């Protein structure tokens, strides 16, 4: 029999989930609501806000910037992440803990501070406000995620597997290509999707360094500074679907390890 207390605790868990998901659901519902200021009772159903967003050239421009930045970030961050994870897996060397800290520290620095540092440094180099400025910063922020995911997968690989390939006459490179890479491929795809999602959502550092090459979150931030505008909800649904697709693909590839092994 389930006691009264544990029913109460379960209700509390449901309440916590409700609070966490309330804004996500509210934003979706209000994106189809005709009233400019959303409250209950709801107004009538409309796709007006979506039409406004779709017909807005500024939005498409931003979407293009975001997509290109996210794809480039994902590729470069995953390559760097792989090489760092492989370094950690294969080699012991002096100062390794400093090396790992360098790889994993960026997410702990507040975004405003990293944004300001990046703005100042890139301005000094004359690289601020360029089409690639956001990309440079996002690689720093995304590499730790790629590194962690790939390192986890590597730790599931039998260490003697690569050594066996060497003994059988494989060169370092071909052992890597035919033994290590096939094994970590799911993690690489997972890392690509996850880092793309992180980059696609990032607004603070992008706001500092993007200049006129605004990404979607930067446009949202600027709309937010003005009046109440339900277009944000419509863009939010759009961004949510993009990120969720990437995250679900990423999770599917991460979970293949449990089914296969």
């Amino acid at each position, binding site marked *: 029999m389930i006691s009264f207390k544990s029913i109460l605790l379960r209700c509390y868990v449901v309440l916590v989930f409700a609070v966490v998901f309330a804004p996500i659901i509210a934003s979706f519902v209000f994106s189809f609501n005709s009233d400019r200021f959303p409250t209950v009772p709801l107004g009538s159903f409309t796709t007006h806000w979506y039409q406004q967003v779709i017909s807005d050239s500024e939005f498409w421009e931003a979407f293009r910037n975001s997509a290109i930045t996210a794809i480039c970030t994902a590729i470069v961050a995953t390559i760097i992440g792989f090489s760092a994870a492989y370094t950690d897996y294969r080699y012991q060397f002096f100062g390794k803990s400093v090396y790992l800290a360098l790889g994993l520290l960026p997410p702990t620095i507040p975004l405003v501070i990293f944004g300001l540092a990046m703005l100042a440094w890139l301005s000094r180099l004359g690289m601020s406000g360029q089409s690639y400025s956001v990309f440079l910063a996002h690689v720093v922020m995304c590499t730790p995620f790629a590194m962690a995911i790939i390192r986890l997968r590597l730790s599931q690989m039998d260490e003697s597997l690569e050594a066996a390939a060497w003994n059988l006459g494989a060169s370092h490179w071909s052992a890597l290509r035919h033994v290590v890479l096939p094994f970590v491929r799911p993690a690489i795809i997972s890392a690509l999707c996850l880092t793309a999602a992180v980059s696609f959502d990032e607004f603070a550092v992008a706001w500092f360094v993007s200049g006129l090459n605004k990404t979607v979150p930067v446009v949202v931030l600027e709309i*937010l500074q003005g009046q109440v505008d339900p277009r944000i909800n419509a863009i939010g649904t759009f961004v949510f679907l993009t990120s969720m697709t990437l995250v679900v693909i990423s999770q599917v590839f991460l979970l293949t390890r449990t089914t296969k092994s």
Partner: protein
Amino acid sequence: MLWRAPLLIWQILFFVVPLFFLVYLSFWVVKNYRMTPALDPVNWIKMLSRDYFWSAYGLTLTMATVAALLVSLLAFPAAYTLAFKVSARVRQLAVFVLIIPFFTSYLVRIYAWQTLLAENGVINAFFSLLNLGPFTMLNTPIGTMVGYIALTLPLVVILQTISLANIDRSLVEAAHNLGCGKLRTILTVIIPLAKNGIIIGMVFCFILSFGDFVSPYYLGGSKPPTLSILIIDTTKAGQQWPKAAVVAITMIVTLFIVAIAAVAAAYKRPGTR
């Protein structure tokens, strides 16, 4: 060496150097709205002698501390239930579902909270059914706190759930068998065993709240400003980057001290006080 190079090059060029450059920048001088490289402590002296800097510092420290304690407290019953009262499958599913908010736009969620918390928003509409309110929540510290909770609650629940689920069940059963009450078991057995996870959750909540500018700006009304808002206002107001750099460095130093203190507390051996 070849494998080490990519991370080293990128993170040094675009992470370590920018942060050190920020320190250098804080000693530059601004004359006639132009920044000139210098090694002048004038920004530090000016900034650290202003009352508004210290009131912003106190406010940010207080809000982040309250957020860390409040969110940990709010998260604990949920994490406890997920760790001890449900099956492993449900627990995994719950953790997975709690990851979703990280990949939804934080800005869109804050905008949703803005409309939910407004004077004529959904929450006040609910209160008016009970003949209460309307309450002013937007542009008050309550608004800021709601934003901090929205930002950090899922993460703290996940961290607490994982550390609680890893506790050796036989220790909890032993406590029960020896006649230890439910609440006393939680306070004297479970919480000490999950101490590390709880402290790490608090630290993450503190760091995220301390640096966040969206909640205090859009839900808290930006007045009085927190340190992060001070940075943005100072940066966006012309060429005052060196002053913004001073604020940023004091923030990093503060976070560094808090993180080290917390890690020391988490890994302190039991029995040494």
